[in-house]
């Protein structure tokens, strides 16, 4: 039997950088996904309210969110394109052998995404000239295209978890591909709904969190109230739903990927009456250091009875299962996700209770403090969920059919490390700049709200995407605008 060290020693040198690079780019991209999938929906909800009740505050919120959406969607598109490149640059072995089996999901994703790009362009740039309701209705298919895009991506990922829809010939190559069963794999349903709900919930908490901060700072106007209530209500309704879906998903993993479930729950030997460990570290000898042990609970959670048999990691050879470190990582990610989910439920109940009793927001400052943190917390759960599913599948890239090390590119490790370094620097700059731009927009809007709107001029500093385009409205040849004083900032502007 191979030990974990042997497994690592046999791995090609380029495996580590390839894996790190993929992990880094995916972890970055996934932070934008909730907004790509759900921000259009939340914005449209606010937009509808604004049009229906002729509410200027709601319309202003919708316009501002669409301004954020514009930048966010652009950054999401480019980090997503990088991922398509990385399938080839890092895992050509997987794509070469399995591309025709599971690639179709991506085909669906690509055109859903295309449609989304078209509709989002029309929505973002249609505010001024389209008729209000026409503009709104042209935006309505946006959330549907987002759901369709998620369908494609999750179909591909769930196939990697529970591959089917093919037979293997004598050389181990897939033949007799059955596309329908390759798309609708056993893990598809649970993964899809868990993912979709997570995206809406996260986007809701993050957007609401921004206004919770404003509320704490004493900005208790209708604008902040609306900005908080609409996204927070969406998220609060979805939180208990997500808890149920998540529970069902974990049980689906228990049935369909028992070894991954063993890693998530750090179960070493197959047994009944298995205890549940909250956190804790799995050791090489199968013992567990630290953590909170709850007797019988794991068996009960998996099969509703203490006598449920839970498969352990040792049921398969060491080379076919996650290492103890990987199992511990998957376990911690899983536990953090579940813990945060539990706390979010309490927050949602708090909100629901006050709403039912008084038709009003909770008065406690602590509620808004928690709501402000909820956004970051749910982004963390998204990361954790993804780590659980990806690390828990190790060492397989295609579960029980292809190891990560067989899929990796033959390109030299040095090139990959260099690329990794470049990508980290570029992403840090891009995400930093993205955050900076969004914060600058927020600061600008806040100044505008308190009546410090800067005088509009032709300076490049005021020439935002939503900025004035005086050239546009004046016909005929335009004289060059006067030279700018080198202040580099608009009077009364940010900072």
């Amino acid at each position, binding site marked *: 039997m191979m030990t974990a060290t042997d497994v690592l020693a046999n791995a090609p040198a380029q495996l580590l950088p390839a894996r790190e690079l993929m992990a880094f780019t995916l972890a970055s991209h996934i932070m934008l996904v909730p907004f790509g999938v759900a921000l259009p929906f939340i914005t449209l909800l606010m937009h509808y309210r604004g049009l229906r009740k002729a509410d200027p505050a709601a319309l202003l919120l919708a316009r501002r969110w*669409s301004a954020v959406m514009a*930048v966010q969607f652009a950054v999401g598109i480019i980090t997503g394109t990088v991922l398509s490149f990385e399938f080839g640059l890092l895992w050509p072995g997987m794509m070469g052998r399995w591309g025709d089996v599971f690639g179709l999901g991506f085909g669906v994703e*690509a*055109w859903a995404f295309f449609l989304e*790009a078209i509709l989002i362009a029309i929505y973002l740039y249609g*505010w001024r000239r389209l008729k209000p309701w026409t503009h709104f209705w042209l935006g309505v298919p946006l959330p549907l295209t987002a759901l369709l895009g998620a369908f494609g991506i999750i179909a591909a990922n769930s196939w990697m978890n529970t591959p089917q829809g093919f037979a293997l010939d004598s050389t181990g190559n*897939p033949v007799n591909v059955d596309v329908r069963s390759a798309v609708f794999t056993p893990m598809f349903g649970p993964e899809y709904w868990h993912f979709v709900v997570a995206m809406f919930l996260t986007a809701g908490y993050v957007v609401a969190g921004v206004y919770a901060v404003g509320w704490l700072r004493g900005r208790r106007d209708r604008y902040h109230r609306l900005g908080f209530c609409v996204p927070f209500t969406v998220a609060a309704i979805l939180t208990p739903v997500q808890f149920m879906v998540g529970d069902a998903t974990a049980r689906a993993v228990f049935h369909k990927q028992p070894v991954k479930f063993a890693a998530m729950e750090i179960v070493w030997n197959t047994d009944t009456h298995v205890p549940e460990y909250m956190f804790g570290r799995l050791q090489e000898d199968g013992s567990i250091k630290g953590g909170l042990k709850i007797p019988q609970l794991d068996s009960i959670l998996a099969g509703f009875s203490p006598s449920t048999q839970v498969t352990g990691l040792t049921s398969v050879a060491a080379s076919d299962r996650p290492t103890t470190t990987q199992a511990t990582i998957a376990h911690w990610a899983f536990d953090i996700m579940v813990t945060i989910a539990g706390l979010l439920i309490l927050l949602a109940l708090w909100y629901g209770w006050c709403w039912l009793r008084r038709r009003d927001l909770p008065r406690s400052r602590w509620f808004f403090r928690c709501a402000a943190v909820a956004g970051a917390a749910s982004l963390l759960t998204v990361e954790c969920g993804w780590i659980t599913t990806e690390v828990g599948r190790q060492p397989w890239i295609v579960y029980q059919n292809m190891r990560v090390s067989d899929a990796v590119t033959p390109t030299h490790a040095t090139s990959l490390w260099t690329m990794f370094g470049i990508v980290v620097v570029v992403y840090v700059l891009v995400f930093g700049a993205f955050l900076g731009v969004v914060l600058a927009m927020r600061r600008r809007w806040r100044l505008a709200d308190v009546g410090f*709107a800067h005088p509009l001029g032709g300076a490049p*500093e005021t020439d935002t995407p939503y900025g004035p385009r005086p050239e546009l409205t004046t016909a005929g040849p335009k004289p060059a605008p006067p*030279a700018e004083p080198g202040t580099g900032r608009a009077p009364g502007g940010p900072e």
Partner: protein
Amino acid sequence: MTADIVAWVLLLAVVAYACGGGVDYGAGFWDLLAGGADRGKRPRWLIDHAMAPVWEVNNVWLIFVLVIMWTGFPVFFQTVFTALWLPLALAAVGLVLRGAGFALRKPTRRLSERRIYGAVFAVSSLLTPFFLGAAVGAVASGRVAPGTTASADVWASTTSVLAGLLTVAATAFLGATFLTVDASRFDAPDLVGYFRLRVWVSLAVLGALALIGLAVTHQHTSHVYQGLTHGIGLVLVIVAAVAAAATGGLVAGPAAGWARYTSVASVALVVAAWGLAMRPYLVPTSLTVQEAAGADATLQWLMIVSLVALVLIGPALVMLYRLDTHGVLEPLTDKDIEE
């Protein structure tokens, strides 16, 4: 049969990306050469304005190309991405910088930041199509074959470099043509002349590069060269040359709007001719369409997916471009989001 049809779909997606993405890269190219903050202000204003609503859509074609490659022709995808690791990795980095530069420049107000984002956007608008073109050149040259590992040898050849330069010139030509038309659309007669001149310059460079390419690469790329200089391939190339020349004439005349169509036609026809010249190979002369094709069932579904895509995306795309060219798509103003 199915594989051939999917290969045509792939070629169509490449054509669409060459034209859509090409216009977009070309605009970035002219942004790069527009001069300092003052001198380049007007052309940059036009570039910003013309690109903003459509640039994302223009670049999504690339994802289509990649998806059809790995789903329809997995071995081809594996071969290309293994052998051409470096140019494709550089193109990917270029794509990130370009998109981020453009997207972040717009909402930024400080001049210094705008300069940095603008420079990043413009430089990578030059580098990305160069590396993508160089990768295509390397495939055409036949140096890529299944099992080839990444090395500079594969792509640092005359053919690759020329293909890269040709791609950049073609994007500059497309970009200048569209911007000439956009300039009249946005009522900026001074910029019409400005970009018209650039159409002619890029046309001349494009012609010169094409002639150099034909003269020096025929022994490296014998299969593709043969296809481009004989039969239907030759016809397409000649029609493309005529269309390109017509573009040069049209931008000077009263029917400048038509120049968009002729410029797109010229690029599309050249790409189509290249695709035809590759037949029956995907990688000449080591991997045919049939050998690279994925499972039959997948290819059939891929055709269905492409058909659905055509039905759904076609009208949406037409609507987007119509709204855009009719001036309906306009960014929100500060006033719209600050009160």
